[in-house]
């Protein structure tokens, strides 16, 4: 029968080749195509069971494949761990399974399970942990007891904790290798504040501090029936499985409920933030400020707004910035609304370095447009139809239907939330979208983050405003804490440098230094030479006289005033430049060595560079890295992160002046390229100082 139909169809087709298209009714416009109504259906819902001890169980039969999958979802995750132990849930999630049970080691479980192609796995996330199983149906009876044993009696053996720590440390060591992951992480930290449970990151020190007892305590704290949602789907008999689960879990007594922690959010200060990353040809850009959460009745209007603004190919961001301008491969954004904690408004994009500034401005333009201009009727109808016509895909498999019920249960939403949702979308008007845009999107509150190689940008980043550099140097394992603080190795090292420079007594006796030097600089205008006389009165006054081809330029930095005198006249130093200069003065070599015992100065070892040691120096927010020869205490070079990238100053020569050692020759590179050099010809220690040296004329 089928064969005849096929022959007939082919005959008609061949005939059609020799007739005009209209005979076959060829379509030339997609609007001609009729759309029949969608066949109505309802995906079977799982059965919900609640035990007296508070455990909730969902069961769904699915006989398509001879498999059974189950999961215990447990409240409590990374957001419930103290900051000093950030990363604990990752260690926990791994070593729960690999550390085995009291009766079987993880390696024994590996053998047993893998030879049956069965999986029992554990995991840890921000708000929950889980133990899951995935087996061929014939193995359910042998594997279920293992899954249960692991859930209730994990051993967290030390060797597997150590293995999990090695994995965690590997991830930390690699977290700055890809610009995209730097952007995601730092945008999150900006949006929430680094100490928020939603932005904390694991460090070598926090990973090192996690103990076996911590893991056992976390298990004891969270694994109680009233904190657990079980879900099972597969080729089983639902009634039999229900009986088995009731028999297994009914007698388990309740425990303390895990409560949601305070989000601990610090709003970002609006402005421009920059992370130096030199081994890239793109700038990665993100803009963030606070968002909202799913319980907000404005969510449907926000979803429409997000769809119009940043939804897929049809959204404004992709249309304008990718299709029309070819600036990017990926751009997107919108107001984030997680289920049970505040999200972020976030826009993000990657573009070649040479269009970094243009792209930031273009993104800002789109954000402003979103707030100021109403959405068109065409935009509104496309967004609504896209969401409503695709809605069938939110529940087109038994698996998805089960997942939804678990999600709603976990976050405390009504079971019919998803069935009621389409009508809420249908009701959204253009005015609603305009209202929520104005209410939830604030261009003046945005923190703009750029990751990249600034020397390749078409204009300096400072053309967008004051730039705050973000130092993403990974703190060393023996760092005191993520918030700073010296460590013993750091103190020892800086004292060694102090010795090399002449010793504490001699340095303490210094009140001022005047240096004469000749400099060569690489500037945007070309190479330039200058003779300089620099006077520093410790701790906070500087006067530098530079004799340039165009005349003498004098820069003064002092608590009372900060200004520049040029042949054209005297001008105050702009705030950003003054702050930068003040930071550099705080971290100037002699100033640092004079403040070794000042608690406001921190000294932390931060890894090695070949045979040299790296010392992270902090001075009330200003930072610099010193690279030191640990054998002699000689300061080899300094590394400073700034607006223009990373500046490395290599001290190629030290000379004695009195009983003090001073660097007398230096070479500077910026973002890997030569920036200049300097030769000191004279040093006066504690010279006589003119009364008006730091006074504005």
């Amino acid at each position: 029968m089928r064969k005849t139909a096929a022959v007939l169809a082919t005959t008609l087709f061949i005939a059609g080749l020799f007739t005009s298209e209209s005979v076959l009714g060829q379509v030339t416009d997609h609007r001609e195509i009729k759309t029949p109504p969608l066949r109505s259906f309802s995906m079977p819902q799982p059965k919900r069971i609640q035990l007296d001890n508070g455990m909730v169980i969902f069961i769904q039969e699915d006989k398509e494949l001879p498999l059974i999958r189950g999961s215990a979802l447990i409240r409590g995750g990374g957001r419930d761990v103290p900051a000093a132990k950030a990363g604990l849930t990752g260690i926990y999630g791994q070593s729960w399974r690999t550390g085995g049970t009291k009766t079987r080691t993880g390696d024994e479980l590996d053998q047993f399970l893998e030879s049956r192609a069965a999986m029992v796995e554990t995991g840890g996330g921000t708000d929950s942990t889980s133990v899951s199983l995935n087996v061929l149906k014939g193995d359910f009876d042998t594997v279920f007891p293992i899954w249960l044993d692991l859930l209730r009696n994990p051993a967290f053996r030390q060797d597997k904790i150590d293995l999990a720590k090695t994995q965690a440390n590997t991830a930390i060591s690699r977290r700055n290798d890809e610009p995209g992951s730097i952007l995601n992480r730092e945008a999150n930290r900006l949006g929430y504040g680094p100490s928020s449970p939603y932005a904390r990151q694991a460090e070598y020190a926090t990973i090192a501090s996690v103990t076996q007892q911590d893991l056992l305590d976390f298990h004891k704290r969270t694994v109680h029936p009233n904190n657990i949602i079980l879900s099972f789907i597969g080729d089983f008999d639902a009634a039999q499985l229900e009986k088995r689960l009731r028999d297994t879990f009914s007698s388990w007594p309740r425990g303390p409920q895990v409560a949601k922690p305070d989000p601990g959010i610090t709003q970002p200060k609006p402005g421009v933030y920059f992370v130096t990353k030199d081994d890239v040809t793109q700038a990665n850009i993100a803009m963030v400020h606070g968002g909202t959460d799913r319980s907000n009745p404005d969510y449907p209007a926000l979803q429409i707004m997000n769809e119009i603004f940043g939804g897929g190919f049809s959204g404004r961001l992709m249309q304008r910035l990718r299709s029309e301008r070819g600036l990017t491969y990926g751009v997107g954004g919108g107001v984030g609304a997680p289920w049970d904690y505040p999200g972020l408004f976030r826009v993000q994009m990657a573009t070649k370095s040479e269009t970094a500034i243009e792209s930031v401005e273009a993104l800002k333009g789109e954000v402003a447009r979103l707030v100021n201009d109403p959405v068109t009727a065409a935009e509104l109808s496309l967004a609504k139809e896209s969401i409503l016509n695709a809605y069938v895909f939110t529940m087109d498999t038994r698996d998805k239907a089960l997942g939804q019920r678990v999600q709603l249960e976990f976050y405390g939403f009504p079971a019919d939330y998803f069935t009621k949702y389409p009508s809420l979308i249908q009701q959204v008007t253009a005015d609603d979208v305009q209202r929520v845009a104005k209410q939830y999107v604030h261009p003046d509150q945005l923190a703009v983050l750029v990751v990249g190689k600034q020397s390749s940008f078409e204009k300096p980043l400072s053309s967008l405003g004051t730039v705050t550099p973000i130092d993403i140097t990974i703190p060393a394992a023996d760092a005191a804490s993520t918030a700073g603080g010296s460590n013993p190795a750091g103190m020892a090292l800086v004292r060694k440098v102090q010795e090399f420079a002449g010793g504490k007594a001699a340095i303490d006796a210094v009140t001022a230094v005047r240096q004469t030097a000749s400099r060569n600089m690489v500037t945007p205008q070309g190479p330039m030479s200058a003779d300089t006389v620099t006077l520093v009165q410790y701790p906070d006054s500087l006067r530098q006289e530079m004799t340039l081809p165009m005349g003498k330029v004098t820069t003064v930095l002092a608590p009372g005033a900060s200004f520049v005198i040029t042949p054209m006249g005297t001008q105050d130093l702009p705030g950003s430049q003054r702050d930068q200069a003040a930071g550099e003065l705080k971290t100037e070599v002699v100033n640092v060595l004079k403040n070794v015992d000042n608690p406001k100065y921190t000294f932390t070892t931060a890894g090695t560079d070949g045979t040299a040691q790296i010392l992270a120096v902090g001075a009330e927010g200003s930072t610099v890295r010193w690279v030191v020869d640990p054998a002699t205490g000689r300061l080899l070079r300094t590394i400073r992160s700034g607006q223009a990238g990373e500046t490395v100053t290599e001290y190629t020569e030290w000379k004695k002046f009195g009983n003090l050692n001073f660097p007398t020759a230096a070479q500077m590179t910026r973002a890997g390229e030569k920036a200049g050099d300097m030769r000191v010809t004279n040093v006066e220690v504690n010279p006589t100082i003119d009364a008006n040296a730091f006074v504005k004329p």
Partner: protein
Amino acid sequence: MTAVRTRLSMLVALTLFAALGVTAQDLASFEKRMQVRTLGNGLTVLMLERRDAPVFSYATVVNAGSAQEVPGITGLAHMFEHMAFKGSDQIGSKDWAAEERALRKVEEQYRAYESARGMTRPDEAKVEQLRKAWQDSIAEADKLMENDEFSEIVDRAGGVGMNAFTSSDVTAYFFSMPSNRFELWAYLESERFRKPVFRQFYKERDVVFEERRMRTESSPFGRLFEQFVGAAFIAHPYGFAGVGWPSDLHAFSASDAEEFAKKYYVPSNMVLSIVGDVNPTEAWPIVEKYFGRLPKAPAPPALRTVEPPQIAERSVTLRETAQPIYMEGYHRPAASHPDNATYDVISMLMSSGRTSRLYKTLVRDQKIAAGAAGFNGFPGEKYPNLFTFYAITTPGHTPDDVQKSIRAEIERIKTEDIPAEELQSVKTRVKAGLIRQLTGNSNLALQLAMTQTLAGDWRELFRDVERIDKVTAADVKRVANVTFTESNRTVGKIESKGAAK
């Protein structure tokens, strides 16, 4: 002890085999639900009913990838993939007659600009004048197009998961739709290949260049991958990383893309698979009506160049601020070779799960790698390719450390017989893996189309598993000794300079 364990594992294997025999997931049951037709123009169409929810998914797989490229047009296969979203003469145009003229003008202007630019001693003023004229012609053509109309139609109709990819071997297009949109889908999908229009070509070239910057230039692994395949393949186009060389990306034209499409995007070189809520009686006439419009054309010529046997060990080293990565690749035959099943087994033995060789030695015991694997089909499988080992070092360990241990594991499979129960565990997991794969409309649509394209028959998905089941310890040893030799090896690594920052 060993005898008891072996008998026990044999028992497990038999039980599993028996269990599999009575399931609905074997070849026979699939054959009952599958319909396959070849249209008059040579297009192969697979249709599989899955009637749960009123949705369906499809995949179109074209048997052409970046291996079909030559110097001058590297990156073009991927570029065409982007173009396939730009519509046709019926979709995406405000006025086709005018737009067609405008686009032809763009090509003429581009040709003039390119030849002036390419002269040995270019006249810079003339070049700039021609560049401006070319850009102006683009601005004129852009006025006549409806931006992104194709994807907007799909979005509005409720389409989800719309995407595509280009590999060394194939180019694949896919999305899912509510099932009442079947005819609309058939029109759209056939339209994009019936008459693709290269509007916004030069803007999209910029977008593809951004993709290159993202995936290759700004990523340590991306940089390593490009250098590694370039060293491993000195003759065959597998040596070109798919995204294209910068010079070619800045130079190839819409006319080049049209040539490429005419040559490779022919129905006899394409497979279409449809999985989901489709009624074959109603669906086949629609498929014939719309996809029958694709003009019949000769099959493209086969790729001529074969990579000659490697006689010199090669190595590439990147020195970066990023953390170390290690790779070593060995040439192996194409997936069609009878030993393919043995290579699959070697990959499983080396890297599947916590009982695998590389996990146990490098990750668990020595802790020199956070992850390590050995895998086939790199960068593709249609032609002779590489079996590649890959490792991510733990802090304080170097590429040399992991190299040493990887080589020791290779030596073991060359000299020792794989224990029976280890081999059996691999086979059990392969069989279960197949079962686990046989669900999900979009997943099935893509898998079936890929297998039909690369292996010539969708049934090979099942037959592959049967072949793996027959692999012996002697096969593993033989293939290992032939493949993992010094002169057949290419090493690629990132060495870290300085401390992690």
